[in-house]
């Protein structure tokens, strides 16, 4: 057997037939981050000739500890383009096409996906994963899904009608926090961090955001007096802002508790209003933090106050120049503002303050990421790709990489599960939706349920053959105006009523669903969905069999960190109680959808087939 240069090793081990299939295949790689870099390298060295790669991100310094196709000189450039150029340098005999774009845009619809033999996901978020999954199911192109987090990783092969799809098992949902907790009664550091991010958006962002504003107006002379004092400070914006959020607003909260007879502070120590003068005057003895890495130091109150003024001044300058700010964990001024704001608020509410390093982790949902794990996972992806291209779908495996061997196994592999016939993406296309049709308007129905929870991109809604809402590009101004009018109506008004069947479709995902509506007043502001085939009158949710499928692991960087459905027994209990009135259901009806940092291992057992959504408050 003669080694034929570059491909000698491959032909020898794969055999002629598979090698030919590999050469003739057309591959789409979605994502050029940690896994994407490894994967692209593996592909160009494994005989693949025709590869397209897409990523919307640019290169950041913190990528360089693993995304080896990028170097310092590439910071700020397009990931997909640099990845392409770096890979071609090592194997110029491959065709690589790169797109610096969002996979969810209409350029990459069903017709785009249909051109590929195989799609390989190297993504970092649930949203895009769901989108790609739907397109691959729709056009029946096999998909290999993957993810890593720290020392953990996993690979899964998806093929319509043969294996489970990405959405056959419920995915971890983003953790939500009640508005009132964030606005008035934080108890954990994360609450203050979220508040800091919201405050950043409200003060320096592009939108008028009243999320954090207390609506309680008071005639109390004490409060009035404080508000007048605040008014006099308007000329110095950073100082005014400090005084407003850390003194006046807090003062009002405490005072309202005192005078209103509300038992707000009965169960907890009241917060302490903090003025800038007092904060700057404090000089509590701090232990020497010599030798700790700069970002890992925990600043004291005075230092946080200084940081707050410094970052607020800088951000205000940016805003005045028309550069509105959006939270970005790699934008130092943003991070400093959130750190200082969150820490001062923590102090006020008696919550421990944290280092910038830790706050960055929680605010930016950072998952530790290293080259080694990505290398292992990308190697496994190509091994699975070989099986798919060899027509051996039955031999593909769902594989997990563990931190250390358990029972001698570092890689745990299992047979692919059969498709879930109740899955609304690849199975039944049915969803039972319980909600109050008198209370929900069409806007919330579209934005919170169809887009936010079901994961649609550009949905259209049809009731009894009448188109009641259309989303998407190419609408004329009249249609847009019509839509706006429609969106304000309640569901009842657009004939989405009890027992109605709503046809919802999304051309960009080639997804058509039937939503069966069940009128319910049990969860004011809430809704409940289940991907099951409806049975007449019997709507009692079934408790699914226990599965051992680990929650999906997100890919490394810039991740929207998701919290797994926690506490199985509790959750199950809750699931069964859905039909009985839940007294707590309306306590937290206003909630912010925020992701949170959790240990992925903790969420390994996903048991609930139900996704619960919450309506964001007005």
């Amino acid at each position, binding site marked *: 057997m003669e080694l034929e240069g570059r491909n000698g090793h491959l032909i020898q081990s794969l055999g002629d037939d598979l090698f030919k299939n590999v050469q003739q295949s057309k591959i789409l790689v979605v994502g050029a981050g940690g896994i994407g870099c490894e994967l692209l390298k593996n592909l160009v060295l494994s005989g693949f000739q025709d590869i397209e790669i897409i990523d919307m991100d640019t290169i950041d310094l913190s990528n360089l500890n693993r995304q080896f196709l990028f170097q310092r000189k590439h910071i700020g450039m397009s990931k997909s383009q640099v990845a392409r150029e770096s890979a071609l340098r090592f194997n110029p005999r491959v065709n690589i096409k790169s797109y610096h774009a969002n996979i969810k845009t209409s350029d990459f619809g069903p017709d785009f996906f249909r051109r590929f033999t195989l799609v390989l996901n190297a993504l970092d978020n649930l949203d895009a994963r769901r989108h790609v999954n739907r397109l691959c199911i729709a056009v029946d192109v096999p998909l290999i899904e993957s993810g890593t987090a720290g020392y953990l990783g996993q690979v899964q092969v998806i093929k319509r009608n043969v294996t489970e799809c990405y959405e056959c098992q419920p995915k971890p949902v983003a953790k939500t926090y009640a508005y009132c907790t964030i606005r008035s009664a934080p108890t954990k550091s994360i609450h203050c961090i979220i508040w800091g991010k919201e405050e950043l958006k409200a003060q320096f962002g592009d939108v008028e955001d009243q999320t954090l504003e207390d609506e309680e107006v008071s005639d109390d002379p004490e409060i009035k007096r404080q508000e007048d004092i605040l008014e006099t400070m308007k000329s110095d914006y950073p100082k005014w802002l400090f005084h407003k959020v850390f003194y006046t607003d807090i003062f009002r909260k405490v005072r309202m508790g005192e005078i209103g007879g509300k038992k707000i502070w009965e169960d907890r120590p009241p917060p302490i209003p903090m003025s800038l003068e007092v904060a700057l005057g404090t000089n509590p003895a701090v232990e020497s933090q010599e030798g700790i890495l700069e970002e890992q130091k925990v600043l004291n109150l005075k230092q946080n106050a200084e940081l707050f003024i410094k970052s607020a001044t800088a951000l205000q300058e940016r805003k005045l120049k028309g550069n509105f700010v959006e939270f970005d964990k790699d934008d130092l001024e943003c991070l400093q503002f959130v750190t200082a704001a969150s820490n001062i608020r923590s102090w006020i509410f008696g919550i421990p303050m944290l280092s910038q390093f830790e706050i960055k982790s929680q605010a930016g949902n950072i998952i530790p990421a290293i080259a080694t794990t990505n290398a*292992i996972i990308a190697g496994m992806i190509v091994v699975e790709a070989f099986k798919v291209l060899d027509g051996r779908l039955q031999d593909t495996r769902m594989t997990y990489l563990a931190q250390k061997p358990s029972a001698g196994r570092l890689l745990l592999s299992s047979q692919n599960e059969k498709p879930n016939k109740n899955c609304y993406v690849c199975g039944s296309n049915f969803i039972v939706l319980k909600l109050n049709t008198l209370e929900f308007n069409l806007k919330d129905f579209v934005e919170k349920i169809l887009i936010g929870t079901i994961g649609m991109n550009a949905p259209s809604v049809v009731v009894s053959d009448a188109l009641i809402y259309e989303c998407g590009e190419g609408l004329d101004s009249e249609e847009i105006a019509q839509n706006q009018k429609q969106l304000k109506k309640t569901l009842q008004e657009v004939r989405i009523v009890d027992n109605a069947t709503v046809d919802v479709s999304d051309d960009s995902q080639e997804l058509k669903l039937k939503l069966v509506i069940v009128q319910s007043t049990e969860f004011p502001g809430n809704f409940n969905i289940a991907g099951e085939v409806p049975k007449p009158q019997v709507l009692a949710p079934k408790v699914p069999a226990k599965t051992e499928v680990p929650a999906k692991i997100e890919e490394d960087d810039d991740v929207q960190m998701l919290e797994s459905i926690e506490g199985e027994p509790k959750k199950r209990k809750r699931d069964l109680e859905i039909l009985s009135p839940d007294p707590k259901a309306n306590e937290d009806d206003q909630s912010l959808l925020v992701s949170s940092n959790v240990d992925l291992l903790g969420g390994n057992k996903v048991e609930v087939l139900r996704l619960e959504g919450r309506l964001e408050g007005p």
Partner: protein
Amino acid sequence: CWWRTSSRLFQRKEKMSATNTTAPGKKVIDEKRYDRQLRLWGEDGQRRLGDAKLCLLNANASGTETLKNLVLPGIGAFTILDGRKVDAADLNNFFIEESSIGQSRAEVTTRLLTELNTEVEGHAVSRDPVEVIEKEISFFHQFSLVIASDVPEQPLLKLARELQPRNVPLVVIRSYGLIGALRISVAEHTIIESKPDNPADDLRLLDPFPELLAFSDSLDMEKMDSTEHSHTPWVVILLKAFKKWADEHGGKTPSTYPEKTAFRNGVLKEQKKQDEENYSEAYKGAVKSFERASIPSDVKALFASPKADHITAESAHFWILVHALKQFVDAEGKGLLPVSGSLPDMTATTDMYMRIQKVYEKKAQEDAAIFGKKVKEILQKIGKPTDTISEEEIKKFCKHAAFLNCINHRSLDEERNPNTAKSSLIASALADENSHLNWYVALRAADAFYTQKGRYPGDVDSNVAGDLADLKQIAEKLLQEIHVTGTLDERFLGEIIRYGNAELHSIASLIGGVASQEVIKLVTHQYVPLNNTFIYNGLNSSSQSYQL
């Protein structure tokens, strides 16, 4: 729930005495570049990586991939020892360009690898590793870890014999067609931070130290208002409950299942109102608290080692510390390890949390002081300066006393010696076609084939049928030598011949990933490394590790 206090803030204190980042002679860590990994192994781990000097024998695809994953996170320095010139077959290696055919493989790969991270020192030595092993074995003394790839069996054994007594880890990697393998050998690898998945909290609820008991007794739950009552840490609730139980049961603790159930229900009955969060935490926490504090088996094994008893001036710091720990346990510790001082998050007011935290912390500091004194006494006794082991090191050791570990890998010679080989393990594998050890035997046969003929079976220009017959014979002989009856299924050998020592990039990438991960564990002394052989089968994407 209100007022859940995080222990994170307090944990920071331990870090405060860490080494100064700007101390002379120490590199400043690039926090931004290494942000994502600092979150995994911390500053200490990053420093140890930065201090490591590695050597790679042969920059083939799997060797280069392994190094790539170590250059990226910032290993200190590497040397590539490789006498080959680049040829077309090397184009399965990403760090070789077509234009470099004919050049030194060591130089080409070193140049491209250092491009990945300019902070890493790379050296190329264009010499045949086999020749260096045979003629100049002391070359390897300069390294803190050696990675060997594609080194024939006999020189490999010689290298292993050289590294073993020096306690330098040897990592042997292999990517052979669709099969990957890894063998780690280090005579003694000691670990202070083993980082178990679910470490038990060191709360001493059944064996409270006097100060803890006094603290618990000082709180009168009867007299508390509802806020205080629902914010008393669950630890206190249990301490009181255990004391009460002992008073009512002749000094005993709940031991049978019905007793434990009764105890837990009793705890819940003490609530002032329904659903007090701290009481449900106590109810949950009770399950883990029924076990008395004891010394973990890994630590007991350390105490049993002769090295923990015979301390000399040559003893490693680790063993001096273990010796001192043993003394502590036998004397002041009254059979227990020093108190760790860390407390999990729990429902409590910040004030209450800090008070109880202080009780544990104070005890931990006292224990650590006693332990530190013992260490110094031992150092004095063996004629070494008392600051030989830094305060920092002593504190860290004391803090992690429950998670100490020591791995002794069997040597490559022990694996091969007929008297010490794992013959019965291998024999049972031959009867099970799913066992990865079949691949192990097949690879060993391929090595023996190479030793005999100077080429791998099924390699270039060879007679496949003839090779199969020879390989079969070689495998049989190999099994006989280690007293294994039974034969290896011919299909495994056939597959090995088909591969002909070809390296598939994706398998090389995977093995390189696993190998570098283990190297990081070895270098940082965090987590427990593989012991000692890992085999990956790409035919069905499965793996298994064995102690061979």
